[in-house]
C-alpha cells in the first residue's frame, strides 16, 4: 500500500485574492476579475477582457527590504506564492535547513517577456549590451530556481510545461516524488505572467475573447464565459499558486493540519480531431484519464461530489471537456456539482490547475461550491449541471480536470481529510 499524500498549506497570488479564505469568498459571491486591456500601441488588443493581478506588490510577501532585482515578473509571482505557502504550512527556515523541500512548477510561457526583451535588446543595442542577470531569467525554470534560492529549497526542482494542464501534472508529480522516497515535502503548483507578448500571440491565434461590443473572428459578439452559448474565447489571466505536499503520516507526526488528500491522478495526450469529422479524440482521452483516476481512487461515479473544470470560454475546448466528463461519469454526470473558475479568474495557464484545485479545498472546508461566474445561458445538450450561483455541497471527493492546447488532458482526485490518523499508516 503506497503512502497517502496530503496538502498542508497553500500560498497564492491571484486576480481575486491572495489569501485562501478571501479567494473562496470572492468566488462564492460571483466576483469576476476581468477588465479591458488598455494598450494603445497594440490596437488588436485594446478593449479585450483580461484578468491581471490587481496592484501586485511583491514586497508585501517577500519583505519590504527584499532585493527584487534578480526576479522577473514570473519569478516575483512564484516567490510570493512560495513565501505564503511555506508560512501557511509551517515549514520554517530551520526545518528547511534540516530537510530538503522540493519545488514542482507548472507553466506555459514562464519568462516569455524576459526572453523576448533580452532578444530584442541584443538585436537593437548589440549582444554586448544584454544583462547577465536577464540571461539567467531566460531559462524556463528560472522562476523555480529563484524561489529555491530565496527560500533554500534544496530538494528536486522541476518545471513542467503545458499551460492549463501543467499545475495538475505538477501536483501528481509531487505526490509521485514523495511516494518514491525521493523527497519528503514538495511545494507544487504553477505560475504564469500576463505579458504583451502572450496577449499578442494568443489574440493572433484566435484564442482570446473579443472586446465588448466587437465581433471576434468567428463573427459573434462574445463573452469569456465557460460553457456559455456566447463564449468566443478566453480572457487571459495570470497568477501563482503553490501547495505544500507531504505524506500524511509525516504531516500528522509534526502536527500539521491536512487541508485535503491527493488521491490519484492520470494524464494523457491525443491529437486534436479534424473539425467537422465528428470525432473528438481529446474528449475520449479525457474520459479515459478520468476513469483511471476514479478507479485508482476506488470511486464509483456517483461517489464524486464536485467537478472543477478547466473550461475557459474556448469555443470547442469547453465542449470537448464536457464530452469527456459525461463519457466517463455516465448517468451520474448530470447530478454532480460543477464549477469553472476561469469565468472569474480568466485563463491563468500555468497557475490555472492549482486555482481549480483550490476552489475544491474551499468547498470541502465551508460546504459551498461557487458556480460559473458570468454564466447566462449554458450550452444546451452538454448533460452537465451548470449554474451561475454557488451551491451547498457536502464535498468529500472532488475531481479536477484540465484540457490543454493541442490535446493534453489531466485528471486529479482530491478528498476531504476526515482526520483518522490510523488511516494514514
Amino acid at each position, binding site marked *: 500500500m503506497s503512502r497517502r499524500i496530503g496538502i498542508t498549506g497553500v500560498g497564492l497570488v491571484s486576480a481575486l485574492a491572495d489569501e485562501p479564505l478571501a479567494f473562496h469568498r470572492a468566488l462564492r459571491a460571483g466576483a469576476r476579475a476581468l477588465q479591458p486591456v488598455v494598450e494603445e500601441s497594440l490596437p488588436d488588443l485594446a478593449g479585450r477582457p483580461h484578468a491581471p493581478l490587481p496592484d501586485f506588490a511583491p514586497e508585501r510577501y517577500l519583505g519590504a527590504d527584499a532585493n527584487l532585482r534578480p526576479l522577473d515578473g514570473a519569478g516575483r509571482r512564484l516567490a510570493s506564492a512560495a513565501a505564503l505557502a511555506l508560512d501557511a504550512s509551517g515549514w520554517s527556515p530551520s526545518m528547511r535547513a534540516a530537510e530538503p523541500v522540493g519545488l514542482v512548477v507548472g507553466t506555459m510561457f514562464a519568462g516569455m517577456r524576459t*526572453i523576448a526583451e533580452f532578444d530584442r535588446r541584443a538585436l537593437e543595442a548589440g549582444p554586448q549590451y544584454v544583462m547577465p542577470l536577464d540571461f539567467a531569467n*531566460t531559462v*524556463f525554470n528560472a522562476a523555480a530556481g529563484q524561489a529555491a*534560492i530565496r527560500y533554500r529549497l534544496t530538494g*528536486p*526542482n522541476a518545471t513542467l*510545461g503545458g499551460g492549463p494542464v501543467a499545475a495538475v501534472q505538477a501536483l501528481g508529480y509531487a505526490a509521485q516524488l514523495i511516494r518514491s522516497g525521493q523527497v519528503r515535502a514538495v511545494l507544487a503548483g504553477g505560475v504564469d505572467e500576463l505579458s504583451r507578448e502572450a496577449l499578442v500571440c494568443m489574440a*493572433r491565434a484566435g484564442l482570446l475573447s473579443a472586446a465588448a461590443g466587437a465581433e471576434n473572428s468567428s463573427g459573434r459578439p462574445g463573452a469569456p464565459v465557460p460553457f456559455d452559448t456566447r463564449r468566443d474565447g478566453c480572457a487571459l489571466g495570470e497568477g501563482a499558486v503553490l501547495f505544500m505536499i507531504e505524506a500524511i503520516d509525516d504531516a500528522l507526526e509534526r502536527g500539521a493540519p491536512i487541508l485535503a488528500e491527493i488521491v490519484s491522478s492520470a494524464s494523457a*495526450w491525443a491529437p486534436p480531431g479534424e473539425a467537422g469529422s465528428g470525432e473528438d479524440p481529446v474528449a475520449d482521452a479525457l474520459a479515459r484519464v478520468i476513469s483511471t483516476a476514479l478507479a485508482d481512487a476506488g470511486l464509483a461515479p456517483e461517489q464524486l461530489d464536485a467537478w472543477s473544470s478547466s473550461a475557459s470560454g474556448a469555443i470547442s475546448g469547453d465542449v470537448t471537456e464536457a464530452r469527456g466528463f459525461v463519457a466517463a461519469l455516465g448517468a451520474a454526470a448530470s447530478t454532480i456539482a460543477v464549477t469553472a473558475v476561469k469565468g472569474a479568474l480568466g485563463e491563468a495557464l500555468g497557475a490555472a490547475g492549482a486555482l481549480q484545485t483550490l476552489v475544491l479545498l474551499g468547498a470541502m472546508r465551508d460546504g459551498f461550491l461557487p458556480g460559473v461566474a458570468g454564466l447566462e445561458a449554458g450550452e444546451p445538450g452538454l448533460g452537465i449541471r451548470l449554474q451561475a450561483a454557488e451551491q451547498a455541497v457536502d464535498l468529500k471527493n472532488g475531481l479536477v480536470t484540465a484540457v490543454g492546447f493541442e490535446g493534453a488532458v489531466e485528471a486529479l482526485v482530491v478528498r476531504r481529510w476526515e482526520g483518522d490518523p490510523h488511516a494514514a499508516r
Partner: protein
Amino acid sequence: MNRRRVVVTGLGLVTPLGVGTAPTWQGLLAGRIATGPVRSFDAGPYRVDRGAEITGFCPEHHLQRVPAESIGRASQFAAAAARMAVADAGLDDVPSPAMAERSGVAMGTTSGEPAEIERFDDAWIAGRSAESDPRFVQRYPFHVIAQNVAAEVGFRGPVRMLPNACAAGNYAVAQATELLRSGAVDRMLAGGADIFSRITYSGFARLGAVAPDRCRPFDRERRGMIPGEGAGVLLLETLEAARARGAHIYAEVAGYGLSCDAHHMTGAHPTGDGAVRAMERALSSAGAVPGDVSYVSAHGTGTQANDRVEAIAIQRLFGARAAATPVSSIKSMIGHTMGAASAIEAAVCALAVRDGWIPPTANFVAADDDCHLDFVPNVARRLPVKLAMNNAYAFGGSNASVLFRAVDA
C-alpha cells in the same frame, strides 16, 4: 520493495557528430571534434565565433507522420530521434491503440523553440507584431516538443515537458522512470532537445563563458563551453516487458537523484553540495555505493567554475576511490547541447554499458592543479561498465544524476 525495473531498449541521437546513433557513438570513441565556426547566423557582433551546429539534417528522411514544416527545428530533432529510438527498440512504426494508451513521452529542453520567438521579435521590432504568425502559439511554447514527439510516434499516454535547462534530459529520464515504476505506463520515450540559437549564444557570450577555440573540460587551459544543438531520446520500458518480447536491452535505469543548489542562478555551489546530494541520492535509490561506479559521464562544460566544482563534488563523494574512477565529458567533442546534453549523455552511458567502451575527454593537455581525477584524456578506453553515472547541472541550481546498470542476461 518489489518495484518494476526500468530498462533502455532503444536509442535515437541527432548530434553535431551526425544524425543517428552510429555516427555519434563512433565519432565519440574516435575523439572527433564537431565544434567549429558558427554558420547559422552572423557571429560578427560577438567576440567569439565557435559553435557546434548540425548540418545535413533532413527531417523528411526521418519523420513519418508529422509534416516537418509544421513544427519547429527542436521538435524536428526530437521527433527524428524518437523515431530512431522506436525503430531501434524493434517496436512497430504505429503502435496498436491499446499500446499507444500505455506509452508516454517525457522530454527536456533549455530553450524550447527559440527560433519561433526570434521571428516574433523580428516582427515586433519592425512594428508588425499584429501580423505575427498566427501559428506562433502552436509552434513556440516549449511543451509542444513533447507533443510533437507523441504525434510522430503515435503515443497517447502521459506527455510531459520538463524545461529544466541543462539538466532537463536527466529530469525527463527520471520522470519517465517514475511513471514506469508507478505502473501508469508500459513504455516511455525520454530525452531532450535544443537548437542553436542567437538568444542562447548572446547570453553565454555575454557571460564570457564561450571558449575562443576548443572546449577543454577539466583541462588547466580550459576557457569555456561551446554552445551546440541536438536531441537524444531513449526508449524505456519495464524489464519484464522487454524480456517478454525478446528485446535487446542496453542497460537498466538503476536509480536517480535530484536536488537543487538553492545558491545561485548561473553559478554552482562552491563546494558542490547540491551535486553531491544528487549523486548520493541516485546511489542510495539504486542500492549502490560509490565503489560500484565504473564510469562517470560528467557535466563537464569546460568553464572554469563548473569543472572545478564538479571535480570537487566527485572527489568528495568518491573519496580515496576518486582517482581510480574514470570521468569524461563528451562536450569536448559535441559542445554543450543544452537540454539535449544529459539525454545524449544518458544514451552514451547506455552504450558504454552495452559495449564496454567509454568515450574520452578530448582536447585534453594537462590537468588542473585542483582536479586530480582520471579524465580519460583524448583516447577512448575499453572498460567493462557495470554501473555508469550520468551527471547534469543547470541554471537555476538544478542537479540530476541518473545511474545505468548492466542487466545480467
